[in-house]
């Protein structure tokens, strides 16, 4: 039982990370219609930026994460203007190729600045609390709480603010959105900014418990793509439920079966769900 509670906390923390990363990816997919293959590399960059703000600048941990989120949000606007906006009338394959280019570029930049090896970020908060007999580290509690707070803020933003409503409107009907006067360029920029800020927060939260390396985004990228396909491409509740389901399954399988089974669990669930519902849990139309 203690082991179970322990692993449940680990699963929830990992789920929080997956959710934040997956929502960013699914938002861009919903609004712009293409998968951002640079999402993992942006996650990696977010971790390095958090490391930089914490270790080199000396900001407090939470402020360092926010600073990384702001930088990535700004980078999102720059990427949208410089790379994706000029491609707006081309087929989606061109966007995908461009995202691969962005990915290689970011990895090269990080390798140039921080080197190709592993970096270890000092854990900014130490200690543990006991929850129902199990020892849970403060870091994991911070992750879970931050993820929940960010998800609530994001829901508020999407459902209540004009920019958020504009994002949802474009996702649901581009022509309808244009005719009520929503500017698609503006929405693309906001979407990229939000998406990248979210992935930076995910990376900043995970940085103290994982080693940093230029390749750290690769496996996350794979998992997060599995999550948004599982949840239904473009669906926000799908990304949340998918994120927690996958994380808990991964952690439990790794604990009670074997480490390898953890990764296999992700794709077994994915295949099982897609066999029953090919559009994912909350998916509607997939053809674009």
């Amino acid at each position: 039982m203690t082991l179970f509670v322990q692993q449940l906390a680990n699963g929830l923390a990992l789920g929080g990370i997956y959710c934040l990363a997956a929502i960013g990816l699914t938002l861009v997919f919903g609004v712009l219609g293409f998968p951002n293959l640079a999402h993992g590399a942006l996650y990696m960059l977010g971790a390095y930026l958090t490391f930089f703000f914490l270790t080199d600048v000396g900001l407090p941990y939470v402020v360092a994460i926010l600073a990384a989120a702001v930088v990535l949000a700004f980078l999102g606007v720059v990427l949208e203007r410089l790379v994706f906006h000029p491609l707006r009338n081309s087929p989606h394959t061109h966007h995908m190729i461009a995202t691969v280019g962005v990915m290689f570029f970011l990895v090269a930049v990080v390798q140039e600045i921080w080197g190709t090896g592993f970096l270890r970020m000092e854990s900014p908060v130490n200690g543990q609390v006991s929850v129902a007999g199990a020892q849970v580290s403060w870091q994991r509690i911070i992750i879970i709480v931050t993820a929940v707070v960010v998800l609530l803020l994001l829901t508020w933003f999407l459902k209540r603010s004009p920019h958020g409503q504009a994002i949802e409107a474009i996702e649901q009907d581009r022509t309808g959105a244009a005719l009520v006067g929503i500017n698609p360029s503006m929405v693309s920029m906001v979407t990229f900014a939000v998406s990248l800020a979210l992935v930076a927060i995910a990376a900043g939260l995970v940085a103290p418990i994982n080693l940093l390396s230029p390749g750290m985004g690769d496996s996350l990228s794979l998992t997060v793509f599995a999550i948004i396909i599982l949840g239904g491409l473009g669906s926000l509740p799908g990304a949340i439920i998918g994120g927690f389901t996958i994380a808990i399954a991964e952690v439990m399988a790794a604990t009670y079966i074997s480490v390898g089974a953890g990764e296999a669990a992700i794709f077994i669930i994915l295949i099982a769900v897609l066999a029953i519902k090919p559009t994912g849990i909350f998916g509607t139309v997939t053809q674009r």
Partner: protein
Amino acid sequence: MITITGLSASYDAVDVLHAVDITANDGELTVILGANGSGKSTLFKAMSGVLRPTAGQVEFNGEDITRSSPAGIVKKGLAHCPEGRHLFPQMSVEKNLMLGAYVRRGDKKRVKALLERSYELFPILHEKRKQAAGSLSGGQQQMVAIGRSLMSDPTMLILDEPSMGLAPLITQQVFDTIVEINKEGIGVLLAEQNANSALQIATSGYVLAEGRVVLSGTAKELQNDPRVQRAYLGV
């Protein structure tokens, strides 16, 4: 008032609209008749900025809006309720309506009054305001689409085949509402295949064929024109 002169438009270099001249006066109901594929929707898209015309000019209240963005055009008071409605299906009826006032969102009082007007015009929408727009019947969805366009407080409303796919009884209700909207002083530019009902409520009209205006006149003239009778009125 809208004055269209020599308007041409194309899709991927295929010309669809050829030098069309059309005028729609304030407060009047102008109807655009034409068979499927004659270019009615293309004309409307070129007017509201969703499609860039290849030649010609669109003037709205004396101002050249040919190169304006869709957002700029709605803000000036020209609203386009598109064919096929294009609602936000997963959002509630009320959110759809509120998004119609997107360009007026700075003026909370006005938006509230506009929402009340929409509910007065379509009481059923008030009843269903919390339901997802996509779950409504075809006729009710058309009401949401018209209501959403009216939420931008237009002086001229472009309606593209609002009766499409609706049962005759519902079509009649939609036409009654269009008359009501027009009586409030809002100019209406209506595309229809249903020539009979449209000409009964219209002030004047145009007939499009293969992207060209082939006939125009007052509604009376068109109703009595043997070519219109043969082609559209089944006489």
